[in-house]
């Protein structure tokens, strides 16, 4: 069985933990622990769809201890158990994938049922208490699962709720099979010596594993909980005394192993801080071996106990390593993640002349560090989400508590929770899931690869979203003017920064309107051009084969092709293409008489202007709009341009970013905030955070920069 799938409608995902606690551990004095594992059956494969009716019972009862079986069951459970047998047989015939794995258990199951019948009478009385407790939960599971099967066949998620087997080899086998026996899975087996006998081990193990189950997925808390520790020590004391009374201390060899995926983990840490310390351990173990290893041996700070194979596999895939001990149902999950990552580099798409030259990389941990390094505010918060049903990527929502408007924060978190995808290759996917209007050409979240820009925006009372695997952070909410702002505006003196901004807006207008204006003026309103210009354009167009609109579209599309090609091509060839394209556009097209020289100026000016916009997403959006303007101009002339402009204005004032108005401080009019829009007023006068975001703390500076 390669994968365990469970059909769960999305609403039921909160029941996950309830469902997973189908395992019962009870203590029998001599027989040791009896395990019941309720394995959620796989239903994702199309083969199984025929099976749906037969699948209302989900559990397979496996006993992985080949020794004695003592079990306790409620009446319900027995009933289901017997019906499983028949269902399973059908499944085995139909499912090739299942067969390989479950064949092993078929025999076991048969013996188990026999044993179970025999031992039932003995055990039942002892375990009545527990079984009464368990029956309702089992019932609940049965209902939940049957609901699940009925409701939803298409939503498939990968969730494994298998507790760690007692036998280490079973665990390893399980992990191997689940991962498809990968070559990069490293398993280092060791043998440790201990004085404890098996019996004691179980004694020691039980409380911790139980408490692990009770607390769901918070094993660390269990460890740090002083009361739990106390009780454990007490139990250990009792246990230690008993064998002494028996006056027999058995020296025992215990198998254990370290598992990790090479490439994802930092082998230096594993070798130096785990393996070496383990090998140098001279004195022998006594007491709870797992606890001792956790306390004394493993020199990795980020270590926790895990109880399910799901957690184990997730840890392995995240690059952490796993310490398994034979006979223990708890494993150690050690934070040795440290795969290869790109070195910190200069921002590629947002270069500045003056300002920090640091960009995000693909690792979210590094990215968060970069932000933390800039903002040493204790109120800086990173709220983590997980996205991607298969990729399980981390998403961090960054904000500064006490500045950000909680409503905006809630909205961001709410939207992030709705994301339901397999894999998000970049933060752009997240952006599209949570943006307000998917039809708009304007970006409603700002993407940036600059940590300083993120910090600046956090200080503005905005929220940043970082996605694992993406060097682009998202900033929300934004307004239209934010896309025209660079961090360098604040590095330069205000007069220069203001003129730079005005230049950027001016070139935005050029990028948007110039080709459209060209078409409108040439085809409709030559009277609006200066006389000499009219004549010289008319002269160059004399005998030209194409009408203005076709000419403009031809050149614009040629340029777009060039631009797209230069992105795809390797850098070395890219230059060549640039030259060839330049010659084609600039020279040959004119001398061949296909287009006029005036149009070349228009095209190149438009192209250059669109690159002055600091935000690439905005720049692309405007590029699309430019074509709309050209087409409108070709049909209606200047009138058409004005019509489209009006439509765009209406769209912008209607647009929201995370529920806040996109038209910035203009449409809801905040005169004070205008100081940082088209102009950039002197730094000392920028005292407030954007008022339309309603930040809790709206004062950036109190004294206006004048120190007392």
């Amino acid at each position, binding site marked *: 069985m390669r994968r365990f799938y469970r059909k769960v409608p999305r609403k039921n995902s909160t029941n996950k933990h309830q469902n997973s606690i189908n395992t019962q551990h009870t203590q029998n004095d001599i027989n040791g622990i009896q395990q019941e594992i309720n394995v959620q059956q796989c239903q994702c494969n199309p083969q199984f769809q025929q099976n749906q009716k037969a699948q209302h019972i989900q559990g397979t009862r496996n006993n992985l201890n080949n020794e004695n079986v003592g079990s306790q069951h409620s009446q319900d459970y027995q009933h289901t158990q017997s019906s499983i047998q028949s269902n399973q047989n059908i499944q085995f015939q139909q499912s090739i994938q299942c067969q390989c794995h479950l064949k092993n258990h078929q025999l076991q199951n048969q013996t188990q049922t026999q044993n179970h019948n025999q031992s039932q009478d003995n055990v039942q009385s002892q375990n009545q208490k527990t079984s009464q407790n368990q029956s309702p939960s089992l019932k609940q599971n049965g209902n939940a699962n049957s609901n699940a099967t009925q409701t939803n066949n298409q939503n498939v998620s990968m969730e494994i709720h298998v507790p760690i087997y007692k036998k280490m080899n079973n665990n390893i086998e399980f992990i191997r099979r689940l991962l498809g026996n990968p070559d990069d899975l490293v398993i280092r087996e060791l043998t440790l010596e201990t004085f404890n006998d098996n019996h004691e081990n179980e004694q020691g193990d039980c409380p911790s594993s139980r408490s692990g189950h009770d607390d769901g997925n918070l094993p660390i808390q269990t460890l740090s909980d002083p009361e739990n520790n106390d009780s454990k020590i007490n139990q250990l004391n009792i246990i230690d005394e008993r064998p002494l009374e028996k006056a027999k201390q058995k020296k025992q060899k215990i198998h254990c192993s370290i598992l990790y995926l090479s490439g994802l983990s930092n082998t230096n840490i594993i070798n130096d801080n785990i393996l070496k310390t383990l090998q140098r351990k001279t004195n022998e173990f006594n007491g709870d071996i797992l606890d001792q290893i956790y306390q004394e041996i493993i020199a990795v700070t980020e270590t926790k106990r895990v109880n399910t194979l799901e957690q184990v596999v997730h840890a392995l895939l995240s690059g952490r390593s796993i310490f398994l001990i034979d006979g223990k149902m708890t494993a150690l999950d050690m934070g040795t993640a440290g795969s290869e990552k790109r070195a910190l580099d200069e921002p590629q798409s947002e270069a500045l002349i003056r300002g920090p030259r640091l960009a995000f990389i693909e690792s979210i941990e590094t990215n968060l560090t970069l932000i933390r390094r800039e903002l040493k505010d204790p109120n800086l918060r990173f709220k983590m989400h997980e996205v991607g049903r298969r990729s399980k990527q981390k998403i961090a929502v960054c904000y500064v508590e006490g500045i950000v408007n909680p409503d905006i924060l809630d909205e961001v978190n709410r939207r992030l929770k709705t994301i339901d995808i397999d894999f998000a290759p970049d933060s752009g996917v997240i952006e599209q899931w949570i943006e307000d209007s998917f039809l708009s050409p304007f970006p409603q979240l700002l993407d940036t690869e600059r940590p300083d820009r993120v910090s600046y925006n956090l200080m503005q009372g905005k929220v940043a979203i970082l996605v694992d695997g993406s060097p682009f952070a998202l900033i929300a909410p934004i307004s239209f003017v934010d896309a025209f702002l660079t961090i360098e505006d604040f590095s330069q003196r205000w007069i220069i920064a203001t003129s730079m901004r005005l230049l950027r807006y001016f070139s935005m207008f050029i990028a948007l309107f110039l080709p459209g204006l060209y078409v409108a003026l040439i085809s409709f309103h030559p009277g609006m051009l200066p006389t000499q210009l009219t004549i010289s354009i008319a*002269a160059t167009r004399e005998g030209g084969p194409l009408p203005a609109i076709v000419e403009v579209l031809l050149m614009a599309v040629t340029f777009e092709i060039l631009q797209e090609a230069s992105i795809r091509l390797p850098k070395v060839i890219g230059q060549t293409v640039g030259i060839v394209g330049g010659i084609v556009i600039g020279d040959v097209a004119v001398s061949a008489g296909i287009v006029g020289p005036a149009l070349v100026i228009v095209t190149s000016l438009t192209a250059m202007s669109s690159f002055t916009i600091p935000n690439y997403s905005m720049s692309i959006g405007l590029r699309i709009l430019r074509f709309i303007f050209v087409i409108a101009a070709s049909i209606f002339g200047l009138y058409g341009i004005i019509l489209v402009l009006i439509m765009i204005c209406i769209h912008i004032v209607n647009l929201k970013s995370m529920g806040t108005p996109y038209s910035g401080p203009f449409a809801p009019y905040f005169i004070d905030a205008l100081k940082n829009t088209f102009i950039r007023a002197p730094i000392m006068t920028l005292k407030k955070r954007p008022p339309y975001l309603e930040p809790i703390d709206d004062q950036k500076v109190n004294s206006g920069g004048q120190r007392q």
Partner: protein
Amino acid sequence: MNKLNAMLILVMCTLILAACWDQIEIEERAFIFGMAIDAADKTEVKLTQQLVVPENMATVAANAGGGGKAYRNLSSTGKTIYEINLDLAKQASRSIDSTHLGVILVSEDIMKQPGRFKEHFDVFFREKRMRRGIKLAVTNGLAEDLLYVEAEHEKIPAEYIKNLLENKKRLDVTDLVRIGDIDEKLYEETSFPLPYLKKISSTVIDYEGIAIYNGKEERMVGVLKGDDAKALSYIRGLKNNGSINTEIDGGPMTIEILTIKRKITLTNNDPNNLQFSIKIQIKGAIADQSGWENLKEYEVLNKFYKKTSEKIEEMVKNTINKLQNDFQTDAMGLGEYLNRYYPKIWKEVQDEWDNGKNYFSKSDIDCEVKIVIEEPGSINKTTSK
């Protein structure tokens, strides 16, 4: 549903009523640069249009046709200008575009016949594609002839004439050449000056003087030339630069005029004998003088002032005399002054201001010229004594 339909209709209207049929590519238009209006006979006029041939205009090396003429004159006769225009469109083969029309020339003949100018010019004020910046000039002889004058530096005669009319370096010109301004004057029936052009040779046109149009009589009454034209500019307070020549101690002297300010005041209320006083203040610089006096001395300068102001005063008085007696037309803007500052008096006199009873001719116009030389020039003396 009705609302939706209404909305749809409105939206469709905005889209359909505006037109792709306005779309004419720039190379398919024939731009008119100049027009000449001549009298064909008593009622008909002859209209000559100067169309541009952009190919031969080209300044871009790639397309330089160079060889042919950069213009093409079409003419036709008819009753009204609009009608002739449609007639010419048949000859032109391209759609005629008057948005770049620069100059309209009208022959003396038409201007001198009462009412004809006004009659034919209505189309230029009424037609929506006409610009208010079109320049207007009166020609000596046939207006059509001027559109064939090929100056060496301009490829299109109309461009040459247009630039000529924009000259700001002389005083014997007038500022009132835009058709938009003339529209106002015609409406108010006031008199105004117009540029007066004359063809000298096949390549040269001269800005000969200022034609005076009488608004009440609806005709041109005469031409001021030379010093008279300059004097009119002093009286009107023209913003142009210019010069004035005098003689001092037997030698010639030229003073460059920098600014002119004039102030009109009315000293009495009797409509039958209005008394105006015109104060003209001139700032100038010595451009050229043959004397050897030290220009820093007050007496010397004073002598200069006296001489020049006397000269200008004489010129101005001559001109006023001419306007009052020969032309009997107020081209000085006194009527406008009365209209603004003494509307009651103006109401009394306006109907017969410069015709009929002609209050303008009956009024006394006194003139006082004051000149200040601001810059004696870079040198003080030409020769040491």
